[in-house]
């Protein structure tokens, strides 16, 4: 991980409360999809952890949802603004051999699955959950990667009405491996729905003090002992979360 200044080259609204920011700078420490950055925002005491959507050798793409003061300030930043960021934080997704991998993203949790999907060697099924049609984003981007995209919305304004599990059931999707990121209730429902024999990876979210393992503010109990979401995660194997899942 490093601390450095990055230059905003794009910061646009792409859906209801959802923004896409592209920053330019050192990307060498980003090594896997699902890692995150921690952004210093003038006027906020704590940094804001934002998951990396995608990256290349010059830029990092961040998708974020405006949920409070910090992300609101972020959404108003203009291109060429310098951002102080900690980069290359956390352990991301590990791509595993599987015939039929399924990627399930709920709300802004979809963001890191794009960088993952782009790096998957095999065809994927991507299940996107949102509250309503206006909140959907990156549907075409996932399709352009060759993924089969299935959608659920809470109000039925697009795709299956209900949750991601309803969309999976309606479309009769089976998988032999899964990768997911989204709200805890969604991941909990998914954990209950998917047969116990299907392995997978969950990316978790937490309020964080530092984002790099020092304050242990974001610890959870796993089957491998106490782990820090920011440093040991945010991605955990399904097996490691046996204890945590029933609390999710």
């Amino acid at each position, binding site marked *: *991980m*490093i*601390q450095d200044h990055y230059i905003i080259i794009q910061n646009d609204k792409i859906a209801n409360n959802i923004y896409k920011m592209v920053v330019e700078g050192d990307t060498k420490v980003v090594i896997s999809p699902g890692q995150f950055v921690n952004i*210093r925002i003038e006027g*906020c*005491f*704590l*940094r804001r952890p934002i998951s990396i959507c995608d990256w290349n050798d010059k830029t990092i793409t961040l998708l974020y949802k405006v949920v409070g003061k910090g992300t609101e300030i972020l959404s108003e930043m203009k291109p060429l603004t310098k951002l102080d960021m*900690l980069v290359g934080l956390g352990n991301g997704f590990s791509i595993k051999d599987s015939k039929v991998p399924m990627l399930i993203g709920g709300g802004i949790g979809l963001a890191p699955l794009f960088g993952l999907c782009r790096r998957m060697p095999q065809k994927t099924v991507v299940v996107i959950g949102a509250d309503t049609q206006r909140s959907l984003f990156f549907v075409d981007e996932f399709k352009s990667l060759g993924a089969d995209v299935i959608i659920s919305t809470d109000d039925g304004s697009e795709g299956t009405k209900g949750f991601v599990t309803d969309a999976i059931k309606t479309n009769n999707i089976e998988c032999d491996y899964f990768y997911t990121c989204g709200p805890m209730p969604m991941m909990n429902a998914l954990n209950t729905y998917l047969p116990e024999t299907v392995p997978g990876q969950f990316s978790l979210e*937490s*309020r*964080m*003090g*530092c984002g*790099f*393992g*020092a*304050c*242990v*503010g*974001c*610890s*959870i*109990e796993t089957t491998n002992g*106490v782990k820090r979401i920011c*440093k040991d995660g945010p991605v955990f194997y399904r097996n490691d979360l046996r204890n945590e899942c029933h609390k999710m």
Partner: protein
Amino acid sequence: MVNISVNLNGVQLQNPIIPASGTFGFGNEFRDFYDVNILGAISIKGTTKEPRYGNPQPRIAECSSGMINSVGLQNPGIDTVVNKEIPNLRKFYHQPIIANISGFSIDEYVECCNKVDALVDIIEVNVSCPNVHNGGMSFGTNPESAAMVTKAVKAVTTKPVFIKLTPNVTDIVSIAKACENAGADGLTLINTLLGMRIDIKRRKPIIANKMGGFSGPAIFPVAIRMVYQVAKACSIPIIGCGGVSNVDDVIEMMMAGATAVEVGTANLIEPMTCKTIIQQLPNRLLEIGFNNIQDIIGII
């Protein structure tokens, strides 16, 4: 040449900057940012007799000039710290180590301090913990129980013992004096202030445990005031702690009476804080007319 070294009861520090316990783990996390050997000392993660998961999530709440934490003394327990964490730290770090010990009974303090004594340079005793044998009242909130812990720990240790005091008391001077009279070699002050935030949309406290320790720049004036009061009343050295974020804060803390200074929450936001302070300290001292840092200790 500006002298920035200080001496804590015979333990020579190359500079007065010490990352505060609980903000620096066991040193590993900061190695990506700088060589931790530049530090004056490291106060390692607060340790208890048994391993502790700590408090439920969420444990962190942001405030306008600080944060509340309710980590709840998560730590791997004294045996793992003694057998694994301290030896591991010694592999890449060659400056003084300060153990930070917590207990829920006098026996736990004694056992932990006894086990860690041979491996560290200074023992910092956190008396902010609730005493389970006395209705959960914190050891550090009255002079008698603070003195009891001090006396018991002093009896089983050979290293300088610093009692880390809680600011959540009506008269910190009486507690500091009780610790000094009970044989404490020094005092660290202050620990976090008890605080609370409420999520107005969810109509619930942000922290799962409702309340937690408030730290950060907001508490700096409280820390300065308490260090000043205690330094005037006691003659043992003080490690000043509370909201220190930059080089001027360090100088201010030392002028209030601290011999060394712990930097806590600032490490979490700006991981380079300690390095920056250490680099700036000599020139800043020269600018304000000093070439020996020891001359500013308790100058006011």
